[in-house]
């Protein structure tokens, strides 16, 4: 017989009490596991969604003047007539050391053109990267496939009475309307989108680019580092991070993390208290038994080892079951409750963490009862006094 046999025998005997203890730990661990895995999945989900919202870095030509626009209202027409960047600047951005974090680079040339007597804003874009960036665009018709095809903004299409398949003449050159955009509620409604090369020809600005929108993936969010690297690559350009988007993203993630941390702490505290009270009551019930152990020569450390070994076994069980239940709950409930579009990851490290957490709580909650048990006066426990 070993001390562990005594612990095992006691667990077998006090099944309902130990089941209650396992349940307390299980619920605590399962809650934390599901919170952690759902929060993680939400991080990824938000990331994906935010990345879909488009650019978070804008590269514009260096200008000495301050911007003359606010809230979409431009008070100087000179805003579009600044010194241009060059087509190969877009490629240069793809060469920065942190290029792995760059999801998309969308160069643009903007300028005013004449279409059938109307002054219209022409935006030359690289359609594949532009359409990747503007996932919210809804096109009636088709995506432009060749340089002679254009997309019309909602208002532009309506002003020019153009439909997909029609032809429009821009500064004397004919383009076929591949599609029109549904109303966006932005300045893009008024614009015509053409292939960048074609726009450069029409506007008479070969190789010129007015701005480059960059979409940087922000998992670890070194957005300032990316800005700095682009600035070094393009010393004549002004590189600005859309700080607000980054901050609000960070804030959302922080709020989620704080929330799950707070809930986890509360749940774990409750779990710890369940362990403490259950173990205390188990120790109180076993006063005479512990008195016998002490009387026949068990040291205090022997008693503490029996109690802590029981706690360890129960915690291991609670941890494993809690992890499994937590993962199951987050896999099943995650998509429904948190509207997750990404799956919950079954991470073995989380399993290890869950078991370690259960053991930590189980042992922490049992230390005081174990000390109490170890310090029981055998004479008092056996009613000699």
């Amino acid at each position, binding site marked *: 017989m070993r001390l562990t*046999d005594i612990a095992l025998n006691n667990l077998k005997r006090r099944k309902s009490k130990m089941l209650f203890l396992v349940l307390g730990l299980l619920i605590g661990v399962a809650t934390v596991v599901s919170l952690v895995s759902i929060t993680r999945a939400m991080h990824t989900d938000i990331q994906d969604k935010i990345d879909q919202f488009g650019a978070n870095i804008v590269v514009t030509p260096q200008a000495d003047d301050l911007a003359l626009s606010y809230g979409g209202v431009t008070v100087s027409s000179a805003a579009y007539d600044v010194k241009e960047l060059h087509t190969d600047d877009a490629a240069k951005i793809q060469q920065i050391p942190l290029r792995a974090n760059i999801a998309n680079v969308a160069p643009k040339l903007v300028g005013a053109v004449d279409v059938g007597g109307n002054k219209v804003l022409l935006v030359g874009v690289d359609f594949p990267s532009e359409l990747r960036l503007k996932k919210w665009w809804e096109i009636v018709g088709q995506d432009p496939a060749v340089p002679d095809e254009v997309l019309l903004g909602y208002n532009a299409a309506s002003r020019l009475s153009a439909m997909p398949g029609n032809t429009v003449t821009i500064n004397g050159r004919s383009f076929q309307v591949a599609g029109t955009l549904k109303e966006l509620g932005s300045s893009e409604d008024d614009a015509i989108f053409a292939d960048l090369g074609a726009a450069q020809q029409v506007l008479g600005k070969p190789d010129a680019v007015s701005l480059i929108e960059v979409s940087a993936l922000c998992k670890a969010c070194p957005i300032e580092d990316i800005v700095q690297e682009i600035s070094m690559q393009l010393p004549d350009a002004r590189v600005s991070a859309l700080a607000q988007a980054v901050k609000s993203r960070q804030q959302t993630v922080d709020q989620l993390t704080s929330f799950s941390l707070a809930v986890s702490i509360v749940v774990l505290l409750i779990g710890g208290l369940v362990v403490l009270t259950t173990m205390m009551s188990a120790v109180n019930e076993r006063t005479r038994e512990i008195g016998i152990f*002490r009387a026949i020569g068990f*040291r*205090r450390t022997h008693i503490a080892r029996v109690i802590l070994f029981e706690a360890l076994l129960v915690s291991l069980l609670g941890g494993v079951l809690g992890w499994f239940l937590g993962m199951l709950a987050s896999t099943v409930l995650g998509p429904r409750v948190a509207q997750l579009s990404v799956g919950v990851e079954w991470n073995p490290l989380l399993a290890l963490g869950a078991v370690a957490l259960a053991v930590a709580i189980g042992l922490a909650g049992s230390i005081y009862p174990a000390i109490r048990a170890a310090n029981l006066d*055998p*004479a008092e426990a*056996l009613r*000699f*006094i």
Partner: protein
Amino acid sequence: MPLIEMQQIVKTYNSNGAAVQALKGIDFRVAEGEIMAIMGPSGSGKSTLLSILGAMNPPTSGQVLVDEIPIYDLSLEKRADFRHEYLGFVFQQLQLIPYLTALENTLLPLAITRLSHRQQEEMALTALERVGLGDKARRLPNQLSGGEQERVAIARAIVNQPPIVLADEPTGSLDTQTGAEVMRLFQSLNREGLTVVIVTHNPENIPYVQRVVHLRDGGIVQDRGRQK
């Protein structure tokens, strides 16, 4: 050379703010191989005396020497080791662990030794056979009669072969015949060299011991019988 020597043992308890003297300067010696009874009415201090003798209850003053070891000069852990090495206890109301079989109850004192499972089991079975329960080793306490439970408690007390066995009211819950059988068992163990100290209030146990110490109001009023 006495195996046990109690020197001027005084034990005072604090009861509701008032000091109550349970033992008032007890002096006696127990020789090796002696079997003796400590008798007295309720409240005479006999159980307190046994717990002090059992290294579980430090006296207010005085010293207890066992094998010349001043046991209350030992640290708590060393005193636990001392109990393990020198003493076997048979408690009042049996005090078997209900969820352990007779064999497992007997094995308990060996759980803290480095003996192998096989050695432990051999020792426990020998002890159970010694008390006549070799065939009931796998039974739980509630599957045994009162006398059998008492004998399991005795097997547990002798399993690691301590020189002294202390018994508190071992026949208290037994009928006369079973009580006599248990006392005969103590007598027989004593003949094999075990020193036995029994606390009892039952005069029927007197024929089985060599010496009777009578306590009253915390003091020895009579010490009858021969000492080796």
